[in-house]
């Protein structure tokens, strides 16, 4: 039977069918739904790790233990997991190990659009790229087999269009059984220099064998058409090329590292003009040119952002006008994402803006604190960066009014070590942890701070307050961010101190808890000061000369009520009483 599955659902199904026993990862768009789907299979132990490095290390242990294993993350997650990855190529695996890495060209939900195909080359591991969901499912199985046969981890690289597009997948495959025995082998698994040197040259032999395999691998194939123009394409670019140039010859690359050199040379020889179509960097093109093959690529095809049929057509036809008109902006008002009505992050950013502090930011829903009207954030680099950034900035400038703002899941991911640095090296920055009891940005996953696991079991919650005290932070407060007065008092007090301090703003995400509350309303006392409009709440709008609250949106958090000096934002019953007087 064939059913429509997203790339992510297909990868989960592929992992199930291939007999995967252990799955670990950390949420990150567009990869998140792979583990969420896998969690439904009882046969698979799947879990969220606190970060991607830990996820891969768990995966390595599972593989050595003999289980077929999958580890999932978004592209920047592989930066975090790069340390174990590079050495894992030396040691190799026991049970098959596939690392799913989801790139995000065009940065739909990311801070950069790095091209992670480079990781395959620099870490010296094979990489597979699916072009649709059926292939994604198949490549999990193939990847695990390649991993076991060549004793090496395999990266399955997807892009947003593959992860989040749906296409038909055959779901009649029976789950395979596979497990291996662990054999202690210190030469292979203990990478002291003496052992690592042996594994280093052994790795070259494995790569040579893989290059040979790439020539025979059915995923790499030529679809012959016209010989006057031919394309070499990987991933979703293959689909676009087939769509736009149905008559052309196409060499579809599914194993992008190592590339099938003979197959490609043979193809190039038989075609008059060969164009490499690939998203982001000239990864394939550069290699082909290094081999001396006469191909073109980035001269015609854009290197920034996602491709689509139009950009490819315009590039190949050399139609600069067409590409320019595609980029032309229109004057329709944009619809940027915003914090939800009642979001517990809102009040904190309102205060940070009022206090004009230097705010080192981090990644999560709260990064929306940079957008108007809140505009209360100075930096955002990568997960966990806020605390180190605040520390360095504070040391360089001598300023005391510096805070780091970090979410609870981000703090668990990579906020603890930089906080240790603040304590150890006598920083005085104030660290604000926005504890909304979930990983909201990526769709509300649990994390060690909530204690609940991916499988839904309740467990031990990491007590953030006790944790930061144990690290040596003496000044710690827990505050309700719906209470603006208390929030402002806490920030004022902590930034004045010459020691590290932590404020935990604790209040559950309105989406996670499905919070609904009695909506507020604006009464005649409104003096049109527009103070409430500085909150950027989607429930509040400005109509003619006064604010209006949309009752279907408002959850009654009363942050706007506290901002309103005229006392014009009240509960419905208060309004009724007022009308009676």
């Amino acid at each position, binding site marked *: 039977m064939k*059913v429509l599955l997203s790339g992510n659902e297909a990868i989960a199904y592929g992992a199930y069918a291939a007999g995967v026993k252990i799955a670990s990862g950390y949420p990150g768009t567009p990869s998140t739904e792979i583990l969420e789907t896998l969690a439904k299979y009882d046969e698979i132990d799947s879990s969220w790790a606190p970060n991607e490095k830990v996820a891969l290390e768990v995966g390595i242990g599972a593989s050595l233990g003999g289980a077929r294993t999958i580890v999932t993350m978004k592209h920047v997650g592989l930066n975090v997991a790069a340390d174990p990855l590079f050495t894992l190529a030396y040691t190799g695996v026991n049970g098959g190990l596939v690392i799913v890495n989801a790139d995000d060209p065009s940065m739909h939900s990311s801070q950069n659009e790095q091209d992670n195909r480079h990781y395959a080359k620099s870490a010296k591991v094979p990489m597979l790229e699916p072009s649709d969901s059926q292939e994604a499912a198949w490549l999990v199985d193939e990847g695990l087999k390649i991993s076991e046969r060549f004793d090496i981890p395999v990266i399955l690289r997807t892009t947003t269009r593959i992860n989040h597009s749906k296409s038909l997948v055959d779901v009649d495959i029976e789950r395979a059984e596979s497990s291996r025995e662990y054999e202690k082998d210190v030469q292979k698994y203990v990478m002291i220099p003496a052992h690592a040197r042996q594994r280093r040259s052994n790795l070259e032999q494995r790569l040579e064998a893989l290059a040979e395999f790439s020539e025979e691998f059915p995923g790499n194939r030529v679809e012959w058409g016209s010989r006057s123009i031919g394309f070499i394409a990987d991933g979703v670019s293959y689909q676009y090329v087939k769509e736009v140039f149905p008559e052309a010859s196409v060499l579809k690359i599914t194993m992008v590292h190592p590339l099938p050199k003979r197959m490609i040379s043979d193809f190039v020889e038989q075609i008059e003009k060969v164009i490499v179509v690939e998203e982001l960097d000239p990864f394939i093109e550069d290699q082909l040119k290094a081999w001396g093959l006469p191909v073109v690529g980035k001269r015609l095809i854009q290197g920034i952002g996602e491709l689509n049929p139009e950009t490819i057509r315009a590039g190949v036809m050399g139609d600069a006008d067409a590409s320019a008109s595609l980029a032309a902006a229109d004057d329709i*008002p944009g619809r940027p994402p915003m914090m939800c009505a009642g979001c517990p992050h809102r009040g904190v950013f309102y205060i940070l803006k009022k206090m004009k502090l230097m705010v080192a930011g981090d990644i999560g829903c709260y990064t929306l604190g940079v957008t*108007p009207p809140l505009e209360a954030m100075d930096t955002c680099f990568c997960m966990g960066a806020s605390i180190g950034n605040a520390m360095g900035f504070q040391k360089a400038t001598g300023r005391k009014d510096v805070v780091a703002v970090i979410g609870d899941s981000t703090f668990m991911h990579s906020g603890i070590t930089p906080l240790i640095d603040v304590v150890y090296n006598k920083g005085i920055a104030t660290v604000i942890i926005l504890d909304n009891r979930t990983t909201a940005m990526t769709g509300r996953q649990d994390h060690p701070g909530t204690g609940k696991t991916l499988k839904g079991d309740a467990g031990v919650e990491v007590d953030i307050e006790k944790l930061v005290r144990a690290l040596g932070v003496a000044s710690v407060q827990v505050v309700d961010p719906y209470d603006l007065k208390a929030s402002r008092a806490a920030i004022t007090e902590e930034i004045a101190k010459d020691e590290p301090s932590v404020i935990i703003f604790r209040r559950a995400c309105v989406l996670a808890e499905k919070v609904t509350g009695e909506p507020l309303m604006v009464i005649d006392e409104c003096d049109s000061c527009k103070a409430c409009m500085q909150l950027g709440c989607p429930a509040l*709008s400005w109509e003619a000369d006064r604010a209006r609250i949309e009752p279907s949106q408002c959850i009654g958090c009363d942050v706007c009520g506290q901002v309103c000096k005229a006392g014009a934002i009240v509960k419905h019953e208060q309004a009724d009483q007022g009308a009676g007087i």
Partner: protein
Amino acid sequence: MSNEVRNVLIVGVGGQGIILAADVLSNVLVSAEYDVKMAEIHGMSQRGGSVNTMVRFGNKVYSPVVEKGQADYMLAFEKLEALRWSDYLKPGATIIMNDETLSPLPVLLGKAEYPGDIEEQIIAKGINLITVNATAMAEESGSPRAANIVLLGCLASLMPLGKDVWHAAIERRVPPRTVEINKSAFEIGFAYISERATADEALI
């Protein structure tokens, strides 16, 4: 079956039930034995962003994304979003637009104006525009939240597939408690366009 690939866009604002509508539509197309691809971008969408889902079907579909100027139908859950994505339609294609306005942040803040002439702008592009008060019609079916299925019913009446495949897909995809409400929402949308079409013919 001809080789032609048909394209449908479903657009709106995060939280309006767009993904579910696209899901039901694609399921219907799969049971009608088409090759189907569906592309969606989500991520920031839950935070009130613009959402756009593309469904393509035919004998063999390659690209999951629709090119500008190639869509045959659009279901728009919100008016500004209908305008934003209208360049994706073929001349003469049809937009079924929910008569609903949701102000984006720049408008809420008074920094931009919500266009007052969306209908005119769309019609000027040579697009066939059908405006539907889907929310009110959904209330008739028992829940304003079924507006997405009302719109789907409107689309269904323009497509050459039997009603039973739509009912079956609704049964499979919506939460069990809401099957009856959604089926009746579908019927209301379907009847609205069919009756309108007969009225139009009567005029000619």
